[in-house]
């Protein structure tokens, strides 16, 4: 749905994007995770060409945006929704007026606009608030207006620029739940950038980790979790680093209640001590990560047993 290849963006001497490739599939929620200054905001703004990349191409819904002239680009942008960290609502307009704005730009007739606005208010849970001014709303409500506005033109893609970063944790969760619902119900493809791992954990299907203008790691979360040495796994499950030599890190993606650890201790001549670990709900299932130290004559056999049980076994420092 979104395909960016070889994106470079330079501001004078500063390189903001240093050869970025991005592939977002239709119907998925794709998160770009990184610290501020990593280039993720530039990347997002290159997708709808708010920033024109120095080199590289961007294709959205099969259309090469970098090849378009300004009038055509404006038409293409009408099919790409965007929500913003500070909502970017017009204070001169009511809530309904804000949502109607993209429809005005598209030249939708008034009656049709009014009908669509009512529908969108309902969709984001703000029915009856159309006549309010943005300054009468809470942050979460403002972002709901932002989302309704972004969806007004029935876009195939929604870009989210740190949309929950200005919100408190509870409101963040409710906005994320709304995005997830829109993704499922409308089949909306969402590309979001964030510096919060929590956002990625809650809603994303795929993720790209960015640093210094490059993507360091990307893919479906379910796959990355199963990839030994993945940076995502390390960041989601912080374990004491560096791992003591000879210790073992176990990642299990199935039912967290399967009693593999106690089985290993019972079946093999090993002692097992737990050094650290946690369990998270991720990509539709539970994922646990455990750092243990194994000692005893049958250590190798025990590890083989764990691998056979479907766990990802990483022996550290060996």
């Amino acid at each position, binding site marked *: 749905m979104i395909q960016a290849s070889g994106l470079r963006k330079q501001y004078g001497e500063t390189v903001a994007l240093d050869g970025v490739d991005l592939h977002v599939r239709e119907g998925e929620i794709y998160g770009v995770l990184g610290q501020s200054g990593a280039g993720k905001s530039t990347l997002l703004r290159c997708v709808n060409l708010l920033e024109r990349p120095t080199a590289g191409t961007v294709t959205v819904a099969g259309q090469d945006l970098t090849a378009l002239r300004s009038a055509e680009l404006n038409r293409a942008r009408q099919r790409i929704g965007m929500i913003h960290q*500070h909502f970017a609502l*017009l204070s*001169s307009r009511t809530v309904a007026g804000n949502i109607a704005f993209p429809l005005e*730009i598209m030249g939708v007739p008034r009656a049709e606009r009014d009908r669509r606005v009512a529908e969108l208010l309902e969709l984001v849970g703000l029915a009856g608030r159309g006549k309010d001014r943005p300054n009468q709303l809470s942050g979460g409500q403002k972002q709901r207006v932002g989302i309704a506005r972004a969806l007004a033109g029935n876009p195939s893609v929604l870009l989210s620029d740190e949309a929950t970063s200005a919100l408190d944790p509870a409101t963040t969760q409710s906005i994320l739940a709304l995005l997830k619902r829109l993704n499922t119900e409308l089949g909306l493809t969402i590309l979001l950038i964030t510096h919060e791992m929590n956002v990625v954990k809650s809603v994303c299907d795929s993720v790209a980790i960015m640093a210094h203008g490059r993507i360091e790691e990307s893919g479906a979360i379910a796959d990355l979790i199963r990839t030994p040495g993945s940076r995502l796994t390390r960041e989601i499950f912080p374990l004491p680093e560096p791992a003591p030599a000879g210790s073992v890190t176990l990642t299990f993606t199935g039912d967290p209640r399967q009693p593999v650890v106690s089985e290993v201790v019972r079946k093999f001549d090993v002692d097992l001590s737990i050094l650290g670990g946690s369990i998270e709900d991720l990509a539709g299932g539970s994922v646990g990560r455990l750092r243990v130290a194994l000692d005893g004559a049958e250590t190798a056999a025990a590890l083989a047993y764990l691998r056979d049980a479907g766990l990802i076994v990483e022996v550290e420092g060996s």
Partner: protein
Amino acid sequence: MTWEEILPLLWPATLETAQMVGWSTLFTALLGLPLGVALVVFDRGGLRPLPAFKSGLGFVVNIGRSLPFIVLMIAIIPFTRLVVGTTIGTAAFVVPLTVGAVPFYARLVETALREVGADVVQAAQAMGASRTTIVRKVLLPEALPGLVAGLTVTVVALIGYSAMAGTLGGGGLGDLAVRYGYQRFETLLMIVTVVLLLVIVQLLQSLGDWVARRLSHK
């Protein structure tokens, strides 16, 4: 002078001032607004960056702003004659008043438009809005309270300028104060004129503030 002598002088003079200020405010708004928009739109990082053109505009605006009004009034007498056919009387002074106030208001318009958040403009760009749409539907409506506040300041400045215009044949309250209050030592008339100007300015400022507040939803 007694009140009976002052009042018949005061009313026509007030009307003349109102005419000068009223017409020049109208023309200032009509010319200053597009000029202010141009200063923002053509600026580096603006909607349609044309830095060289913007610098040229800014230079012309600054010339207008740096000339003392009394000098400007005299300097553009040929232009005034060209436009109105005469250089004395209330109508004639609408020209220098407008020429003097347009650059002033244009700078205030520029400041008000710059107050509009970059994120709002970008949001409109992301929606696929054309530049004209962004100016008409984002920049101007969002800056409206500031535009009104700026116009209020401009009207008050124009009242001051109009008093100077009075001394060169424009009539109005300034002319009255100079001819009677200064040249004939009519203290009572001087005081009455001063109080009247004070009241007019206060009323206009309060009105402007009230309108700007009503329009603001920040």
